[in-house]
């Protein structure tokens, strides 16, 4: 009896130690990838700005003050003011909420839809042919043009930007999920599930879906970055978020008209776009390395380039 207890005890400590080691290994792996750390920090920072930033601002993003028009950055207006005398920092911070919010929404919607489409396409042959031809067709239309056309039909609003960009990016995710699901459905354990008489719902969602999550997350990060660029481009072209709501693209559009007088209206919102896209790309690259333990570093780098190209 004592012996057994002792053994269980030993077993538990060994198990705990193993877990600890595993955790340390994961942490070391994450920490060793400095670029990914940087990417996650940037991403967290943006989330915090989007969530809490607006309540910290002392100016109203919509209040116009003719006397304060196009003032250069100063201690009162840290990033200067825009063509209506509104505080630029406030506008950019509120714009972060809009741009990041749209990014989150589009990423979640297109990931969910793309996952459903990709999984079912990989499972049923006939469905695969139909769904993938539709995806091919949608992907053949240059993304920004499809988004412009959809926005022209739907009319400018934040919701419509989300709808339009979700339509643009869902095929992208569906393709990635499908290709990794196709590999998994050929595995022996899926065959075994079939043999045991498991239903298709259980196989797809319980056994195939979890194995497609890591490529999905990597792809979702890039979709997030693309969404930020596309939303900015749409708003910049006047087909996205309607004025006077602030978004990075909107501020740039206004900035273009006064580019000779107010450099700050182009440079600062531009910096926010560059930093967030850079952060998301670093995070995506890092996650890809992290999820892919089989290949060596060198090979991985090469691979990421190919996808990037």
């Amino acid at each position, binding site marked *: 009896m004592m012996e057994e207890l002792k053994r269980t005890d030993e077993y538990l400590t060994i198990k705990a130690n193993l877990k600890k080691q595993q955790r340390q290994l994961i942490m070391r792996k994450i920490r060793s990838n400095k670029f990914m750390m940087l990417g996650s920090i940037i991403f967290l920072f943006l989330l915090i700005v989007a969530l809490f930033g607006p309540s910290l601002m002392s100016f109203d993003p919509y209040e116009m003050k003719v006397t304060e028009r196009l003032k250069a950055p100063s201690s009162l207006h840290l990033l200067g003011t825009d063509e209506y005398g509104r505080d630029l920092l406030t506008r950019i911070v509120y714009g972060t909420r809009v741009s990041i919010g749209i990014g989150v929404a589009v990423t979640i919607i297109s990931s969910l839809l793309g996952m459903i489409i990709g999984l079912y396409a990989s499972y049923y042959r006939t469905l695969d042919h139909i769904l993938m031809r539709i995806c091919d067709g949608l992907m*053949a239309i240059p993304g920004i043009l499809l988004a*412009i056309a959809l926005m022209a039909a739907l009319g400018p609003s934040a919701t419509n930007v989300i709808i339009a960009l979700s339509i643009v990016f869902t095929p992208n995710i569906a393709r990635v999920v499908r290709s990794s699901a196709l590999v998994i459905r050929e595995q022996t354990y899926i065959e075994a599930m079939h043999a045991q008489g498991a239903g298709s719902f259980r196989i797809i969602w319980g056994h195939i879906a979890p194995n497609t999550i890591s490529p999905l997350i990597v792809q979702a990060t890039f979709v997030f970055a693309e969404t930020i660029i596309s939303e900015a481009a749409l708003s910049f072209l006047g087909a996205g978020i309607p004025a006077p709501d602030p978004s990075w693209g909107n501020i740039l559009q206004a*900035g*273009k008209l006064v*580019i000779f007088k107010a450099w700050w209206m*182009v440079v600062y919102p531009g910096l926010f776009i560059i930093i967030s*896209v850079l952060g998301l790309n670093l995070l995506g690259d890092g996650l890809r390395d992290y999820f892919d333990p089989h290949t060596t570093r060198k090979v991985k780098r090469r691979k990421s*380039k*190919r996808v990037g190209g």
Partner: protein
Amino acid sequence: MIGYILKRVLSLIPVLFVVSVAIFLIVHITPGEPAAVILGLEATEDQVQELREEMGLNLPIYEQYFNWVTDVIHGDLGNSYFMKEPVTEAIMKHLEPTLSLAILGEIVALILAIPVGIIAAYRRGSAIDQSLMVISLLGMAVPSFLLGLLLMLLVGVHLQWLPVAGYEPIQEGLWEHIKYLILPAISLGAIQAALVARMTRSSMLEVLNTNFIKTARSKGVKEYKVVIKHALRNAFLPILTVIGQSFGTLVTGAVVVETIFNLPGIGQLIINSIERRDFAVIQGVVLFVTLVYVLINLIVDLLYGVIDPRVRLERK
């Protein structure tokens, strides 16, 4: 080879079918009656009815689609309601700036990318190599319209070397023409350069480590000949793919960039049509650019087969 071409061309049919349906449906996802939306709030019931007839919106939807596709196949993209002219003509009128810009952008990208990619691969781990990696990472984070604005600010406003807006057609002289396109071409080409340079580097790296390069060296072939003639030639296939893809991207990118520099291209055309809800123009431009994009990719794929016989055997 003919079998390969045929197969590749046939595979486009379902893609083009989906493309046409998607673009056709754009008019129909408008909330409310398209004809009423186009005419605005002040239109009378009769006017709306008239436009409905004119646009064929009274017909059942499959018949509308069939008519539209038949017209498109005959090169008729419909008429612009606002410009009172055929969309095909409007596109042709606006094509020159966009095409010029895309070609110039590609040239900028290649001039920057290929030498840098080769040097980075050749002197792996050197300062040039490392800065290339950092710059290309940055390059991918800067959208071309933003780079355009920043260049406009720096070169156009502060240094005043080049015009920041406007356009001269090519008939006015080549330099006059190019002068207006340099800044837009750099904004477009720089990002593509980042991608092409990375591809060149990795493709060259793979080839430089192969045995036939070692053999060439040991036979005493001059170093630059080894790099250019032996290595680059064999590394060129993946580079070509990226160039092909990038040209497609450049045509689309040109559409966005030209609106910044006020170039009267097809981008300007589609942007002006958004607010007017001139659907015929929007559909026409999107369809046209998509066709160009698909065709370029087809050509690249076929070239691939010509250059490397392994490709066409594999794909059979």
